[in-house]
């Protein structure tokens, strides 16, 4: 046995070396594959975290819009036109910010809702600027109230959508 080894040590060492190289190549290939998977997973985790951060902030703004929009009706009913005007302007300001800030990521249906809400708010503001709420007739006040409610409903629906996306119930 020893004589076989000493006679053929060069061949045996070449074979061993080749076997070790192949093993090393195999391990490198495995490592590369797992590294790529890990990188992909890390990227996906980072994207998910960024989405959560963005939807949480969009959620907060939509929550503000929903609240200030509902204040419009409240102030119309209690005949506080200046406060109703302030709420309408504030809601419009936040809606404009949302449209600009998240424009590339918003769904078409959300953009449409925002366009409707903004147009309704502009007309609410025009009506409130025309004169005191007390001077408005019954039907005119009803129109104002109904429009404010429509705006509130639009923001509440969008808030619901963002909440469902954030909780993973609905796709972004």
């Amino acid at each position, binding site marked *: 046995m020893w004589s076989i080894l000493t006679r053929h040590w060069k061949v045996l060492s070449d074979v061993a070396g080749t076997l070790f190289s192949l093993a090393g190549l195999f391990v490198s290939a495995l490592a590369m594959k797992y590294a790529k998977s890990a990188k992909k997973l890390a990227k996906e985790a980072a994207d998910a975290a960024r989405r959560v951060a963005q939807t949480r902030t969009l959620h907060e703004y939509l929550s503000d819009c929903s609240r200030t929009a509902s204040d419009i009706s409240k102030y119309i009913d209690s005949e506080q036109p200046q406060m109703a005007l302030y709420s309408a302007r504030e809601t419009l300001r936040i809606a404009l910010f949302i449209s600009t800030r998240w424009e590339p990521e918003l769904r078409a249906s959300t953009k449409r809702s925002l366009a409707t809400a903004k147009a309704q708010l502009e007309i609410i503001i025009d009506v409130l600027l025309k004169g005191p709420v007390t001077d408005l007739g019954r039907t005119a006040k009803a129109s104002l109230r109904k*429009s404010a409610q429509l705006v509130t409903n639009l923001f509440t629906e969008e808030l619901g959508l963002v909440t469902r996306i954030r909780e993973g119930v609905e796709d972004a």
Partner: protein
Amino acid sequence: MRDDRALRLFHEIQSKTSEGRMPWEPTADENIFMTPIKDKYVLLIRSYDFLDDRTGEPMGNPSIVFREGPRDLVTINSALEGATAMELRELYANVKRQALRIDAKIDDALGDIEAL
């Protein structure tokens, strides 16, 4: 005033409104109705063309405003060649009827009255 695109827009609004395919909605102003277009425009139809500078009273025939955000892009009124005052009045009446769901409300009331 000649504006072929604005006239085409007017005719499309007339046609789609007659077919009941435009989702007109009331607004805070009893004299204005609106509908969203795509995700960034709105169409407003109002019972007047302009407001008197001194009194703020609505004046003139109905008109349509094509708006993007706070900017009015086009106003369609009886000054537009090819759009008559009568057509604008008829369109406004039709829009008002649809936006306020008058037909459905009449049907609802008729149901009760006929059951008496």
